[in-house]
């Protein structure tokens, strides 16, 4: 599976009294990864809103494998699944940069709503056209692999 990558560095306020990153922070790191990816395709929340849509999160999970610690560099890998229904599903991995060890993995699903709160059961043409380059990117073989 192809991933988009971005990096973060563990901040002092992200570690708990055991010196490990508090579990909730991984979710905000995934958000960093998601925004970095969506920004490349001009699909940030403001872009959605300009088209008349919002995309609230309806499902989120995270599996914790290894703790990250203060000042470590962490690689956030993000990918998006080709939709089988009117929802966007992202998958994430957080890896310790120094040894490539998987720290956590996660998955998040967003549905599509119009600005007046109508939930879309089918992805409309205008959005489908905007999503296509994103899906095509992840369909293409990874040149770095």
């Amino acid at each position: 599976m192809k991933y988009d990558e971005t990096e973060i560095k563990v901040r002092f306020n992200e570690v708990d009294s055991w010196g490990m990153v508090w579990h909730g922070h991984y979710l905000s790191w995934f958000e960093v990864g998601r925004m970095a990816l969506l920004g490349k395709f001009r699909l940030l929340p403001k872009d959605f809103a300009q088209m008349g849509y919002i995309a609230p999160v309806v499902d989120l999970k995270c599996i914790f494998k290894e703790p990250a610690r203060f000042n470590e560099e962490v690689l956030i890998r993000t990918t998006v699944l080709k939709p089988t229904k009117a929802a966007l599903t992202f998958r994430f991995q957080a890896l310790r940069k120094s040894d490539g060890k998987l720290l956590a993995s996660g998955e998040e699903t967003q549905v599509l709503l119009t600005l007046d709160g109508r939930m879309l059961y089918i992805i409309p043409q205008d959005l489908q056209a905007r999503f296509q380059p994103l899906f095509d990117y992840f369909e293409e073989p990874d040149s770095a692999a």
Partner: protein
Amino acid sequence: MPGALVWELKKLIIETLKLEEITPEDIEDDGRLFGDGLGLDSIDALELVVALEKTYGVVIPDSEVGERVFRSVNTLAQFVREKTKSRTLELGNP
């Protein structure tokens, strides 16, 4: 057989959403499908929309239509009947 489509839709709901502990007999014809009824949620609605389009060629574009159609198995059956009436398909006679 007027109840055949209702039965078929119950089976479609169970199979699509993998409701392993529920049988068609457990779903009331007029019972609520979402919330405090069968307990389906918005993601379930998206799955059902895909299955209904594949099986019957009917399109439920959004929650505005969905809230009316997914009220119960009976309202869903009525919607499928209305939308497929113009075609020669005899959905009630499998």
